[in-house]
């Protein structure tokens, strides 16, 4: 971003003006060429695999393109979007990710903050606890989904534990096969997996708060709540908006858990926007329709991150 430093005067002093200019011209030209060569691989790859697909998403959404088809794609106008508007499964998917995000965002952000505050204290075993809390994050979502798929069975570990701790008072449901518990089950598991990640991000925010603020507060004898309310919370404003944006986008992109655990069921109670896009674009090979879904999804993500940034800026 910052312009490169002007060459140090030491070189220029003894060189006559004309030759200096010529020399600089030549070096800057070769510098430019070398710089472009160094930039080229990354720029070409980003163009090919981010910019082109982004533009394609716009273009293909208005065509009837299929993944593998002997016929070239033809322009169909707003047909795909009209179909989207009358697709009850798509609305269900929107509702589901909305529900998922509304619960996961505060739950995960809140729990992660509590954990970050616990970990931020220099007590014995901090490294151990941090490692353990972070373990699910390095575990792939596919593995986590398999594991919880097993634990959520009617006769699985979760229900056995529920039965034990309530002395048989509560009989657990068939979590993933019941429309009323399938989404909460996936929410719980997703928070379990992702909370360690955001704990670390909160932690790095906590460490930017100057320690002398806390020392001053200790001298004034403030309560723990006041410490949190007047020092920690305001000190985390930048981290807060970042965490809200990342968790929300992650939540809206819900896919892996659904694909491994429920395939959108039972009765579409867990289907999501990305799952629908993959179903139509890949399973049914309707690239055009899938692009329309992707486009709508992208616009939603964009609007939400802009809105969140705007709102969190207002508060400061």
């Amino acid at each position, binding site marked *: 971003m910052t312009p490169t430093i002007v060459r140090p005067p030491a070189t220029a002093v003894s060189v006559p003006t004309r030759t200096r200019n010529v020399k600089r011209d030549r070096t800057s030209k070769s510098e430019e060429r070398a710089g472009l060569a160094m*930039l080229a691989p990354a720029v070409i790859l980003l163009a090919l695999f981010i910019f082109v697909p982004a533009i394609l998403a716009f273009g293909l959404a208005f065509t009837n393109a299929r993944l593998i088809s002997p016929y070239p794609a033809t322009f169909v106008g707003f047909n795909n979007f009209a179909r989207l508007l009358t697709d009850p499964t798509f609305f269900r998917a929107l509702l589901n990710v909305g529900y998922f995000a509304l619960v996961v965002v505060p739950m995960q952000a809140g729990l992660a903050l509590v954990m970050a505050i616990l970990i931020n204290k220099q007590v014995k075993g901090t490294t151990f606890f941090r490692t353990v809390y972070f*373990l699910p994050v*390095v575990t792939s979502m596919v593995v986590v989904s398999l594991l919880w798929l097993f634990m959520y069975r009617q006769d699985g570990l979760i229900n056995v534990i529920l039965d034990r701790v309530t002395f048989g008072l509560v009989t657990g449901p068939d979590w993933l096969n019941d429309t009323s518990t399938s989404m909460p089950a996936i929410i719980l598991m997703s928070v379990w997996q992702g909370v360690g990640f955001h704990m670390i991000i909160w932690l790095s925010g906590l460490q930017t708060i100057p320690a002398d603020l806390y020392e001053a507060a200790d001298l004034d004898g403030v309560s723990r709540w006041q410490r949190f309310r007047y020092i920690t919370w305001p000190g985390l404003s930048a981290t807060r908006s970042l965490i809200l944006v990342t968790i929300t986008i992650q939540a809206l992109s819900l896919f892996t858990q659904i694909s491994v655990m429920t395939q959108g069921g039972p009765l579409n109670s867990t289907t999501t926007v990305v799952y629908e896009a993959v179903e139509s674009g890949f399973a049914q090979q309707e690239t055009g329709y899938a692009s329309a879904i992707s486009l709508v999804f992208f616009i939603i993500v964009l609007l939400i991150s802009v809105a969140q940034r705007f709102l969190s800026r207002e508060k400061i």
Partner: protein
Amino acid sequence: MAIAEVATAVTPHAVLGRSTTKKKRSLDLGGWLLRVGLAVLFLFPILFMFVSSLKPDQQIFGDLSSIAAFLPVGNISMDNYAAVFDRVPAARFLVNSIGISAITVIAGILVNSLAAFALSRMRVRGKSVILTLIIATLIVPFETLALPLVWWVNQLPSFELSELGFYFTTGWIDTYHVQIIPFIANAFSIYLFHQYFESIPKELDEAARMDGAGWFRIYRQVIMPLSGPAIATVAILTFLPAWNSYLWPLMVVQTEELRPVMVGVQYFFQLNVSWGEVMAYSTLITLPVVALFIAFQRSFVNSIASSGVKG
């Protein structure tokens, strides 16, 4: 006793100090209980997965109602692991994933650091526009691009080697490179390298230039050797999604020999489900990452923390 009382009466600070330590101790007990409780919550499913992978199915279900569910007791064996290798080409999947992740990480470090070097150190026209465009791509989640990208890679020219020789085809579907090349250039890696390079004093490369070093030599011998932490961060942030990738290979790889580990889970639900085997396969594909995480714990945590600057 009396002296102590006098002392506390005289110096208010001592009183304050004493009362806060007392308060801290009692709070610490609660905090400690909370820490342990959370640790149990995060650990028990993983422990359960590992322990179950050593037991036959019948015993897994039999042990559920007691603490034995979390203990390697009873009929312990590696039978499930042996069965996993019978059911799926697990070794092949592991080799594929190791290869794909390693190449993506190494190429990613090279390509992204070179770009960041040019953006940080060299005079290139329009570089601030390039940097802005690169950073702008960060807001696009991969999931929104995945479907158009499948269509797109299916149009790209490709070449193949076979007994018939070397020939061109269309479509990257069903190859190794479709699992690697789209993920080499990464805007966030470029951003991280750029931030790090900006923190290295420019006098260093000015001095190297005086000695007649070319740009590439400055990159290789001055900047990169000083960028260990940035390299580690980028390596980890590239490795994790590469190893864990699921959605993408699910769509673009059909041939069994080319599949990565995560797609392999599908094999376990085709006929009779053996949960012991599922847990064994899960353990098998998690272990490499967990081992790396425990070995490079500090770098892992730092790299995640640095992703906090995103956005």
